[in-house]
Each structure stands twice: as C-alpha cells, then as structure tokens.
C-alpha cells in the first residue's frame, strides 16, 4: 500500500473454511475462501473476528501465509494454550464453517520485488509465517531475487513448512534455507543448534553491502537479538524491518 492511493474501508468479509492442515503439533494451516478478497502483498496480515451466540466478539490479527492467489488465503495459526481465539481456530473450526476476516493490513513489512541485493528473511518459531508468504510470492513470480531464509525453531518437529521449504530450495533459483534448532537436534544434525546470535548472523547473512532488506519476525526477544545483531554487524537500521509476536494474545 506504500505510496498508493488511500483505499476505502476494509470491511468484514465472510470467510469459509475450505481446508484444515496440521503443520506441527502446535500449528495448523487453515485455507479460507473469501469472496470479495481484494488480494494482498506477502507479509501483510488480517484481522479475524469470532462471534459467540450471545453476540460477544473477539478479534485477533494473524499473518497471511499464502501468496496472493485469487479469493483464497491461508492462515497458519499457532495454538496458544491460554489463548482465547487460537485454540478455537486450531481445535474447533471445521470445513464449511464461516468466520469473519478483514484486510489485508499493513504496508511496511511487505515483500518488495524491486529490491536490489540479497533479501534476508529471519524467522523464529511461528514468525516464519509472513516470511513463508514472501518465499511463496517470490516462487510464484519466478523472481530471481537472491533470498536467504534463516529459520530458528525449537526442534525439527517444530519446523513449519519444512517439505515445501526443501522444494523451494531445490529449485536452485537463488532461494536457500538455513536452520538452527535451539532445543533438540536430530541424530546426525549438522546444522546450527543454538539461538541466533551475532556470529550466526555474520556466518549466514549477507554482508551489509549486499543486503537489500532484512525481514525479521518472531517473539520479541528473538527480534531484539536479531535486529540488534544486524545493527552491530554494520547493517543500516532502516533496512531492517521487524514484526513481533507478543507473548500474549492468541
């Protein structure tokens, strides 16, 4: 939306669940059919609204996981055990159910296909979701923009989209993925096995002269560590875009 005309009001749209797909033990991808959806840019999010029988409503924001592709959008939702909305979305929702969405929202943390240099995506936990939308958009557009994803998860079983990420990397079109598993590593694991720190960013990321833009998404301590590490390595703060998942919500 950057630099474009002001759009009209984002109205609430009825969104029908057409598919539910478990990703990991804590996350599920939900595909919605949203008649009237005006499209989106990778990295944007939507507001979700649930309405109880007595009229009580709850709203939350979720990143869009899918590339722009007609009236269908995917949300990947992490189940927060003490959450009000996410357990409903991951446990209760069935194919054919209708909830309300409005969006897309956000004009800053978005994939810009005109960037020069290497795009560095750094995701922690479910912070991968908007970055996956970018990787998918990039693949859909056959964009050759060099893009490196650094993905930090607790264990291999907590890695969302791992088959698809392997497929995207296997295209050898300038997209690659580096994992770090912070708690449990499988036998024979030869990747990184620690939290992202400045040394890891130096080893994995582009040098400052090659960085087009960094998109960093995850829980606040992760984002703080990555963003300040990148600044320490000499990257321009203005090229580091962050999105945080707070400890609350859901």
């Amino acid at each position, binding site marked *: 939306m950057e630099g474009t005309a002001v759009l009209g009001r984002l109205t609430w749209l009825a969104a029908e669940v057409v598919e539910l797909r478990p990703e990991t033990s804590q996350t599920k991808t939900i595909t919605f059919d949203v008649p009237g959806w005006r499209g989106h840019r990778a990295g944007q999010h939507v507001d979700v609204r649930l309405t109880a029988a007595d009229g*009580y409503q709850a709203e939350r924001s979720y990143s869009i996981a899918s590339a722009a592709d007609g009236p269908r959008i995917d949300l990947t939702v992490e189940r927060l055990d003490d959450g009000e909305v996410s357990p409903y979305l991951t446990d209760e929702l069935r194919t054919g159910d209708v909830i309300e969405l409005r969006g897309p929202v956000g004009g*800053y943390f978005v994939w810009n296909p005109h960037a020069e240099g290497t795009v560095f995506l750094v995701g922690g936990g479910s912070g991968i979701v908007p970055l996956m939308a970018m990787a998918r958009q990039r693949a859909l557009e056959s964009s050759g923009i060099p893009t490196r994803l650094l993905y930090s998860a607790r264990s291999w079983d907590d890695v969302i989209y791992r088959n698809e990420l392997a497929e995207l990397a296997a295209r050898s079109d300038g997209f690659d993925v580096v994992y770090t598993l912070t708690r449990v590593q499988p036998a024979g694991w030869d990747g990184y096995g620690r939290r992202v720190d400045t040394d890891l960013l130096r080893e994995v990321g582009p040098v400052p002269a090659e960085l087009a833009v960094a998109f960093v998404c995850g829980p606040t301590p992760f984002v703080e560590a990555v963003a*300040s590490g990148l600044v320490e390595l000499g990257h321009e703060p203005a090229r580091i875009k962050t999105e945080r998942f707070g400890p609350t919500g859901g």
Partner: protein
Amino acid sequence: MPPISRGFRGRRREDAPSDRVPPGQYVTDDFPVLSAGPTPHTPLDEWDLTITGEVDGLRRWTWDEFRALPSEPVTVDIHCVTKWSKLDSEWEGVSLDTLLEGVDTSAEYVVAFCDGGYTTNLPLDDLTEGKAWIAFAYDGEPLDPEHGGPARLLVPHLYFWKSAKWVRGLRLGATDEPGFWEQNGYHNYGDPWKEQRYWGD
C-alpha cells in the same frame, strides 16, 4: 448480523469493565512490544528533546534539563491497535502542557519524530489540556528501551502507535502530515472507541 462462530464461547474477563475496553480489544496483563525496526540506543548525553516548526523559537531540553522539569505520575488505560489493552498502566512523565507553556504558535498539527526515524501525526489539541505526556518511567522504573526508553510520547486516548517510542521532538505545523503507520495503512487519527484502526475506518 455477523455469522455466529459455531461453538465459540469466548472468555470474558470479569475484571475488565466494558466501559474501559474499546470494541475489538482484549485486556492483557503483559506489555507486548511492537516496533517496525531495531531498538535505538541513544546515550543520554546525546539525547535532547526539541519543539520545532511553526513556533516563535525553537525549544530544546537536554536530558538533565528535561528531567528537571516538573513531572507527574500518570495512571491510564492504553490500547494497542493489535488488539491488546492494558488497564491502569502506571507512568511518570512531563505533561505536554508544561513543555508547550509559552510557545506561541498558530499550528494545528504536530508530527512527533523519534530516534530510528519513526514519526506519527496528531492534532495539537490532542496533546494539550492534560491529555499527553513525555514519559520516562514505567511501573516505577526507568522506561526500558524496548518500550521506548529513555522517553516516549504518551497519548493514551488514541491507539498506542500514536504514543511514539524514542521520541526526540515535536514539529508543529499548519498542515497534517501523515506519519509512519499513517502512511502504511493505519488510520490518520486512531480513536480506539470508534475503532479507527485502518484507512477508511
């Protein structure tokens, strides 16, 4: 009538009076962090606060001068556009009335500018008469950098992105210039009670 979400009951909070929680918000006891880029760390001896633009003369305070101004405890409810609200948050800050005292201006609008390049715009009237502060302490402690320290704007009657973190000054002007989020899809004014989240709301 919105569709009923089959099987959704929700979890109302007994301790959250509905007249204090705007539509679409939920109450949290935590203090989530939201910002668009890295957290700046400006040393206090390089920090200053300025009031500039259409004023009769630039006003500038060093950190020590700013901290020597009269300040007050402020207990307010805050509302983030990402849906969380926090009730009875406790701050210490200098009222904008104190900072603007004696400033002669015909300006109607303000852009708050910050370390890190963040900006946000507000009508000048929304900063005066006890409605806004430059806060330097939260919960009895110096304001943490993640939450905008050393000092942030505090304008609790608007969505919290208007309470600019790492604020370094106010630029007064005759015209309304949309700030960072206001150019990126978010509402120009941001009244939580009217649920003015996004463009067109």
